[in-house]
């Protein structure tokens, strides 16, 4: 009898209302006053989960099996901790610093300290649906009757001890852990460390299977059985959506009352100057554009430390979409240089082409048309491959999830059947065609100077689109059109909509290209572009608008 551990259990005894517990030989708590034995077993309440390595030891401590087939008794939050652990491992393999793990544990420890207390009241009736909006995105289809949480019944409906109850809990103000939220967690930790991984990179790694997310439960220990309601909790069948995870990051950050994050300064990877450079290189645009992007950053104040740093407690606008913002800035710069009205950019290209033909020795002028042709081809190819890879994605894991014990043999049989069929067909497939697993990389497109097939535009000059005026350079383009005339002020989360047909084809192409790069919706990018423009042309929005305005560019 381990009195020390029994002290963790703080519940009042139902019979004598004392708080004084001991452990029986079977590991169940009993009240030392009146010797009332509860059904609660030992493993529930320890919340000291600081180092990750102890998670494994802890789970091994869960040896109190009610029966061998059922496996261990485990709680849903432990499952999540497992997932977080795996994700931290994966991130470490990607080159993130090892402090991440500690961070994650601290986060997970501090946040869910409240959880076990809620969980310990299993005998209480489940929380009634108060009609509050659901915080979770769990969709359980199985029409199991909403059972009163008695131990035996919950164990029938889910492998975890509180699966049923967990998925029904819909209290206002409580943020429930879900698998997408584990990613939010990861991102918060990355942000804290100011690692060189943006949210879109993270989500892309998830899609490419470098970070466990879909079927993360596969790597749970053998004895943690999942079925019933656990399916809805752990069996995710969608890839994470950028906006969704972004919202959750903010939500979790606010919920945990996290302090102001470390500053994002100019030398940090997430600063727009650096991110813009990265994206410019990736999309094969000339390096000279970088000075323009820095300029725009300065003018809009988007490079300020206060603007960039995430501060959950302060009620400031929470803008941690660094990647989307950087890309939006690039789009704005492209619009400044080329207007993108399906006309001007092509006439500029004509000029550039003529010049380049005459002066083959000099640094070539950047030719929009050429760039477009090369980029379009590369983009179409990549997109096609991406779609094919997505169509072939295997969602189901080797560990099938089933409804209940009755279904278990059926589910396993099905799994076996599928594996057999796959084996049969794999003989028909040419083995050389299957590509090996790609190593994760931050860049999706690679351009080099030596490659003669595909021109690399990094070194090209912007001389063709700029003209000198005294000490400063002006863009040849003196016009600009705003992506959004009016911003929406209602309660919906969007400030503008994106109707493709209203915009020029060049603009559509640029948006499609960048949205594909970041795996976001074009409407999201369009919105961000509009917001950047709003900052840049503040006066325009507050005064009646004038159509043309010249843009001065200082040469550094």
């Amino acid at each position, binding site marked *: 009898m381990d009195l020390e551990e029994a002290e963790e259990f703080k519940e009042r005894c139902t019979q004598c209302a004392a708080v004084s517990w001991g452990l029986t030989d079977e590991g169940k708590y009993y009240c030392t006053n009146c010797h009332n034995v509860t059904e609660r077993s030992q493993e529930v309440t320890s919340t000291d989960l600081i180092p990750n390595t102890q998670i494994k030891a802890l789970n091994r401590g869960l040896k109190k099996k009610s029966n061998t087939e059922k496996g261990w008794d485990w709680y849903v939050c432990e499952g999540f901790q497992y997932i977080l652990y795996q994700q931290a491992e994966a991130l470490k393999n990607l080159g993130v610093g090892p402090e991440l793990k500690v961070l994650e544990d601290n986060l997970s420890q501090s946040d869910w300290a409240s959880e076990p207390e809620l969980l310990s009241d299993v005998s209480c009736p489940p929380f009634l649906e108060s009609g509050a909006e659901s915080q979770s995105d769990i969709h359980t*289809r199985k029409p199991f009757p909403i059972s009163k949480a008695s131990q035996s019944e919950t164990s029938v409906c889910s492998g975890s001890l509180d699966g049923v109850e967990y998925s029904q809990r819909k209290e206002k103000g409580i943020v429930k852990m879900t698998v997408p939220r584990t990613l939010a967690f990861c991102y918060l930790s990355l942000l804290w460390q100011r690692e060189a991984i943006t949210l879109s990179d993270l989500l892309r790694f998830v899609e490419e299977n470098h970070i466990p997310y879909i079927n993360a439960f596969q790597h749970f220990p053998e004895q943690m059985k999942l079925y019933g309601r656990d399916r809805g909790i752990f069996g995710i*069948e969608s890839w994470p959506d950028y906006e969704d995870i972004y919202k959750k990051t903010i939500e979790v950050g606010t919920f945990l009352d996290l302090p102001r994050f470390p500053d994002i300064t100019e030398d940090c990877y997430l600063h727009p100057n650096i991110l813009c450079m990265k994206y410019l290189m990736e999309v094969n645009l000339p390096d000279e554009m970088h000075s323009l992007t820095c300029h725009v950053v300065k003018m809009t104040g988007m490079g300020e430390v206060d603007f960039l740093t995430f501060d959950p407690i302060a009620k400031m606008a929470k803008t941690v979409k660094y990647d989307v913002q950087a890309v939006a800035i690039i789009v704005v710069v492209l619009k400044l240089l080329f207007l993108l009205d399906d006309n001007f950019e092509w006439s500029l290209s004509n000029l550039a082409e003529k010049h380049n033909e005459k002066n083959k020795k000099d640094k070539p002028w950047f030719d929009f048309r050429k760039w477009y042709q090369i980029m379009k081809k590369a983009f179409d190819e990549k997109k096609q491959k991406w779609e094919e890879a997505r169509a*072939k994605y295997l*969602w189901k894991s080797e560990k099938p999830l089933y409804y209940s014990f009755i279904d278990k043999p059926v589910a396993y049989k*099905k799994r076996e059947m599928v594996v*057999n069929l796959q084996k049969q*067909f794999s003989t*028909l497939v040419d083995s050389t065609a299957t590509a090996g697993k790609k190593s994760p990389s931050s860049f999706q497109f690679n351009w080099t100077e030596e490659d003669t097939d595909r021109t690399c535009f990094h070194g090209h000059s912007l001389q063709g689109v700029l003209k000198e005026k005294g000490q400063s350079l002006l863009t040849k383009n003196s016009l600009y059109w705003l992506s959004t005339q009016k911003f929406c002020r209602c309660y919906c989360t969007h400030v503008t909509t994106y109707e493709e047909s209203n915009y020029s084809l060049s603009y559509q192409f640029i948006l499609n290209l960048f949205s594909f790069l970041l795996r976001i919706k074009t409407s999201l990018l369009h919105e961000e572009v509009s917001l950047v423009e709003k900052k840049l042309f503040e006066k325009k929005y507050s005064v009646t608008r004038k159509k043309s305005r010249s843009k001065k560019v200082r040469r550094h």
Partner: protein
Amino acid sequence: MSDFSEELKGPVTDDEEVETSVRSGAGMHFPWLQTYVETVAIGGKRKKDFAQTTSACLSFIQEALLKHQWQQAAEYMYSYFQTLEDSDSYKRQAAPEIIWKLGSEILFYHPKSNMETFNTFADRMKNIGVMNYLKISLQHALYLLHHGMLKDAKRNLSEAETWRHGENTSSREILINLIQAYKGLLQYYTWSKKKMELSKLDKDDYAYNAVAQDVFNHSWKTSANISALIKIPGVWDPFVKSYVEMLEFYGDRDGAQEVLTNYAYDEKFPSNPNAHIYLYNFLKRQKAPRSKLISVLKILYQIVPSHKLMLEFHTLLRKSEKEEHRKLGLEVLFGVLDFAGCTKNITAWKYLAKYLKNILMGNHLAWVQEEWNSRKNWWPGFHFSYFWAKSDWKEDTALACEKAFVAGLLLGKGCRYFRYILKQDHQILGKKIKRMKRSVKKYSIVNPRL
């Protein structure tokens, strides 16, 4: 969809009025509304990526099959198998059939696949779910038949015949009947081979009786298997033909006639010209009276006026005593030549030429005019243009002659076709052409004399 509607009904109290079904009492069905109702219940979420990628996978497979890219189709199929484990029960139940259809296509054509692979695949798919066993068995058997493995096919069909699991629906009944009928067809094939053997043997041969008995046994089994199927409305040509052949062989003419009459005249059966053809041929063999034959062919005439049997029909009508039959004979001939496929049919033209002459000689100008009225606008261009004159003469002078005669009778001696043929010099047909000229002069319907 059904379990979903139960969920809707679940938490609703009696006081509230909730629309639990999107089908109104008037029987209108709004499928688009159903999807909206569904999305509302799940909080307006878009459908899962699983559903989206599997449907993308399906379209890739279909595209690869269309382009005959078996390799790629197999690759996508590899990933498509996971729909068997779909959490959506509706899709999960529909998956085996889709997988069977696509997989069998791929295995049929893929260069690396062989009989064994197909057989293993078929056996696996049969055992997934109860509903598909019969269909897959039948298709499997057909595949084996295609590859000439008759014994295996028969074995397959016998196994499938005794399958009694699953619901007893009418479709299952039909499938079982089909399976039996195909088995019967295979037995018929063996029977017919044995019959061939038998015909080569002498009656005194010692093996004759044994073989005859064997043959008889087969026929009995066949008849049992096939007869059930042909009672169900449908198009069962090969089955009916073989069954009737057997019945005839054993002298059961009445039975055969009953089967054929049923097949042709039962209103529940879909309209099938072959049925009438079989019946007609049978009656011809039985030397039925002319009136009966005419009545059978009349129906065929209504369904397929361009059939080559129409010429036989015409002969029958021509020889008939009734005037209405003879008029119909003319109609039939015109009807046959209305169709592009018969324009070069020399028999038809010959008949028409001869018949027209007879009719005009017999003073039935009205008949001819009635038929010609609806055709005089387009037959000249269709049959009797200058182009046709030249090409017909080049190809087949006899045909050209007959056509010319008809042209002359219908369009007068001034018509281009007739004049062209007349101008042609021909050793053998020269005399005939001259005779034609005289007849046309005398009998043409445009002749101002008549």
